[in-house]
């Protein structure tokens, strides 16, 4: 009897981050963003992407539907910031949405 593995949010987050590193050379770091309902199946994978080739516009989340055909079974939310904005987040000058906290770095799996 075959079994279907349950979706693993951490693995999918890393897969999504790796794909974005691969496609956008100006992304220098990707971090997880954690919400208060992180364990719920409908809670998106949330990624904060630091991009040297973007303009500062604050925290502007973009939401994406799940894409099971490419191995992403959770919805996802992407926030793209400049390196300067990332420093502002670290200093608490730029606020994340209510209930969101900065999680761990997702380094690229396939770089050096």
């Amino acid at each position, binding site marked *: 009897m075959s079994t279907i593995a349950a979706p693993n949010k951490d693995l999918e987050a890393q897969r*999504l981050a790796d*794909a*974005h590193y*691969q*496609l*956008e*050379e100006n992304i220098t770091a990707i971090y997880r963003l954690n919400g208060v309902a992180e364990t719920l199946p409908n809670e998106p994978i949330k990624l904060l992407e630091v991009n040297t*080739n*973007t*303009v500062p*516009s604050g925290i*502007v*989340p*973009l*939401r*994406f*539907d799940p*894409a099971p*055909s*490419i*191995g*992403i079974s959770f919805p*996802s*939310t*992407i926030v*793209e910031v400049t390196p300067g904005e990332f420093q502002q987040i670290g200093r608490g000058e730029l606020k994340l*949405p209510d209930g969101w906290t900065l999680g761990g770095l997702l380094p690229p799996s396939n770089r050096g």
Partner: protein
Amino acid sequence: MASLLELGRAFARQAKADLDTWDFLQGRKEVPACHKLLFLQMACEKLVKAHLAQAGQDIKPVHTYTAKHLETILRHRLVGRSVPNGRAILRHAKHLSQEIELLAPAVKRGGQRPDNCEYPWEDSMGTIHTPLEWSFVPSGLLLAPAGRTVLKLLRESIESLV
């Protein structure tokens, strides 16, 4: 009250209608490029606003979302697909999205780019230009192979939300 997903879907439906109209106008020589491009600009802006709405963002009545966010949306469409020139396509998408945003008359990049697809403008030499006779940058960018791929990804992105 409508859910965020419903609101996002409504923006996407309207974006699809804009993009369908853009497609419908292609090849019609009697329709000026400025009018065709107006529908492309609106489709791109509404696609971005669809993703913002679904994330619970307050959608402001501004035209400055496309340059920053369209490339992020198109990048997401390439995840998990084997596209050897994906980075080049996205570089092209970035350039194109910056130019598409400039088609809106309210976006002038500090007065440096008054060209737009709706209203006449006067240049620094006092010459008046109209969108009807202007040669727009996106028209050329869309003809490149990467430009056509960007259009395909744009349609895919819109239809995935409808």
